[in-house]
């Protein structure tokens, strides 16, 4: 069986292993498809919809769709980039994101995507929701104003018995990511840090620690999000 498949992104011929998700396959070919809810090594759940591409003419999420032979993918097209930019703006107006005061500024993927998509001001009216800051857990603060509901923490952070520490509650525009009050107490330093690192924005913060790395020297301060992939030297398999 031939495991290598040929497919194209914006007309450029690419090779990848069959069954790989489109985002990963694109990455191996030096093509950046913007993502937000996706995280390497964590089971994808197409939630943010930012990785939307057109696969054989249909809108699909690149983080959840496996590549197959002959797939034609549109990525860097106006229509698609417009949707992505709109989604970034939607996430900004949905919550309360005040970048200058945020511990994650410079390491924040939402902020970085906004820069990448040249978001000056969102086209949508702000909703200024009233959200709470949950500081009741010994190790972490859950800052609901900044949560983008990507489910990364829900999917990736489990206790030693495999139980979820984070989970959604409610539905629709009332959903929230909550922290288990019991398991939250037992959170190890290591897991707390992992949760903070996995959160794309500043919604999970480790307590008693802040601004370790000065603003200006952080991940996206110098190079736009995705540039690491685009500058990758691709070695064709």
């Amino acid at each position, binding site marked *: 069986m031939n495991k290598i498949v040929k497919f194209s992104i914006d007309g450029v011929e690419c090779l990848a292993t069959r069954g790989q998700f489109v985002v990963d396959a694109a990455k191996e070919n030096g093509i950046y498809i913007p993502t937000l809810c996706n995280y390497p090594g964590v089971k994808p759940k197409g939630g943010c919809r930012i990785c939307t591409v057109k696969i054989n003419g249909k809108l699909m999420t690149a983080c959840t769709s496996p590549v197959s032979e002959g797939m034609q993918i549109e990525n860097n097209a106006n229509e698609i980039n417009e949707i992505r930019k709109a989604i970034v703006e939607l996430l900004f107006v949905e919550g309360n994101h005040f970048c200058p005061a945020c511990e994650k500024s410079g390491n924040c993927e939402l902020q970085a995507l906004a820069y990448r998509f040249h978001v000056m001001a969102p086209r949508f009216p702000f909703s200024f929701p009233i959200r709470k800051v949950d500081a009741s857990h010994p190790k972490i603060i859950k800052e609901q104003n900044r949560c983008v509901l990507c489910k990364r923490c829900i999917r990736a952070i489990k206790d030693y018995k495999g139980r979820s520490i984070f989970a959604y509650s409610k539905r629709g525009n009332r959903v929230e990511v909550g922290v288990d009050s019991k*398991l939250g107490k037992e959170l190890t330093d290591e897991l707390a840090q992992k949760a903070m690192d996995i959160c794309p924005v500043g919604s999970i913060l480790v307590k008693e620690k802040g601004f370790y790395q000065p603003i200006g020297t952080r991940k996206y301060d110098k190079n736009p999000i995705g540039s690491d992939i685009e500058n990758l030297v691709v070695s064709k398999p």
Partner: protein
Amino acid sequence: MKNAIIKIISKYNKDRTRLMDILIDIQTEIGFIPDYAVTQIAEDLHMSEVDVEQTVSFYHFFSLIPTGKYKIYLNNSAVSNMMGRAEVAATFEKELGIKFGQLTPDGQIGLFETSCIGMNDQEPAAIINNLIFTKLTPFRVKEIVRDIKEEKPVVEMFSASFGDGKNASELIRSVVSNNIRKIGPILDPNYKPGEAIKQIVKMTPTQVIEEIKKSNIRGRGGAGFPTGLKWEFCRNASGKQKYIFCNADEGEPGTFKDRVILTEFPRLPFEGMVIAGYAVGATEGILYLRYEYKYLEQYLEDILENARKKNYLGKDIGGKKGFNFEIRIQFGAGAYVCGEESALIESAEGKRGEPRDRPPFPVEKGYLDMPTVVNNVETLCSVVKVILHGGEWYKSFGTTESTGTKLLSISGDCRFPGVYEVEWGFSINDMLDMVGALKSETQAVQVGGPSGALIAPNEFNRILGYEDLATGGSLIIFGRSRELLNDVVLNFTDFFIEESCGSCSTCRIVPSVLKNKLKKILNARGVMQDIDDMVEWGKILKASRCGLGQTAANPVLSSIKNFRHLYEEKVQKNKVFDSGFDLSMAVKEGSEATSRIPNF
């Protein structure tokens, strides 16, 4: 109480995939899901409490706080409003002395809103402790509230006689009416249960699939996927077990035909499930029934029990060695999105009803990750008729592209709302004649429920069928006097906001943004640009994961397309920009608190 909970959890073998049943039983027993129940479930099912709560809080009919001994859920669909819901709602509030979403101070009575409960032909309707009350009037509400205050059992509160047909039967005893107005092959009263089973045991599974394919029948749940092909995919998929789901979530506002089938011809979809099981090689079937139809539970269980006795279910069905099939009923708990097939599967596995990413499709990887067929109630009924009379016969009904008949659920401004079985290819014009609606008095018809389209009179010659107006069968007629934007578009948009599962950013945020724009226009603060913005912004929803999000802008988009003048009449012509911000409203609360009148 704790013991009762432990017993319930044990009844389902501490099986995490049966969390829905556990929660439904606890909710029924105690009236809500108390903290200690969450703790117990978490412990026994080896999950965290927050994980239990994420399922509980997803469903409308579960509650983590007490909701009263008497729980009143008044439907808030557009048609309910048209039929006088406002007065009914006001009477409930006045008589009970509480607002919607509240409990009486003694904690006895709770009053809540709920999305369409499948009674659009007999609105306003409410569910009180799982029993349905239809055609409510302020007078009736007063009687009901009086009875409640006297602590009468809810079953004794019916004043009218029971509904028609099986609604009056011993095991249902409901005031719901079937309102079957036109019958065809599906609603044929001469149906003899079991005949089709006798037929298939003489065929091979592949022959069954071939016959279904020959009929060209497509799914009646809305998406219109060819049924034979779906079964074939599932048959060819590998898995040590396979499952057949009958989708009776019927949540699209305006549809109620599945309820009527399940009341009058319940053996039909069950027989269809057995046929599907035989064809794809599945031995287990699940009827996923919306919680709103809980009043049918005993009746349906009894039908299943009888089928077992007759050997239409169970082992060696129809005398065929090794042909085994069982059916169980899985209730939902109030979530429209659970009608989406993969959300339905998630829900049946005891989780939040969030649709899955596809691929993989349920036919490859569905319930418990096994190949699964999900079919609508009506599809499974049609299948029985195809087996009985042949695919060729079936094709003699309808059009080339849309074969067979379709059950329509018709409601709104017409003389004879109810269920009609017609051949595909029926035009809107013919439909209006059939139901006693004057064309001159009809302003619009909503075809396919809120996720469908709002059609204007100039398009009434269009036909129902996959080639033109594809529909799950919800047709709502709006007369001249209706304010389409306020009564229909706003109501439908609210429906989508309420029912989104919330996991896609697009579906979670855009409908509210559209609603705010619409309200701005309705408040006479809109400008032309707002209409164009809505058209542009509606497109973003196309990037959503499931059909709910993908169609959530349809009320807005189809009304702008077909009734643009209604929007243009309302926007300010002399302005190109208006922020919509109302300073006096924004400072109202503060002004009142300080008794100061701002001078702007």
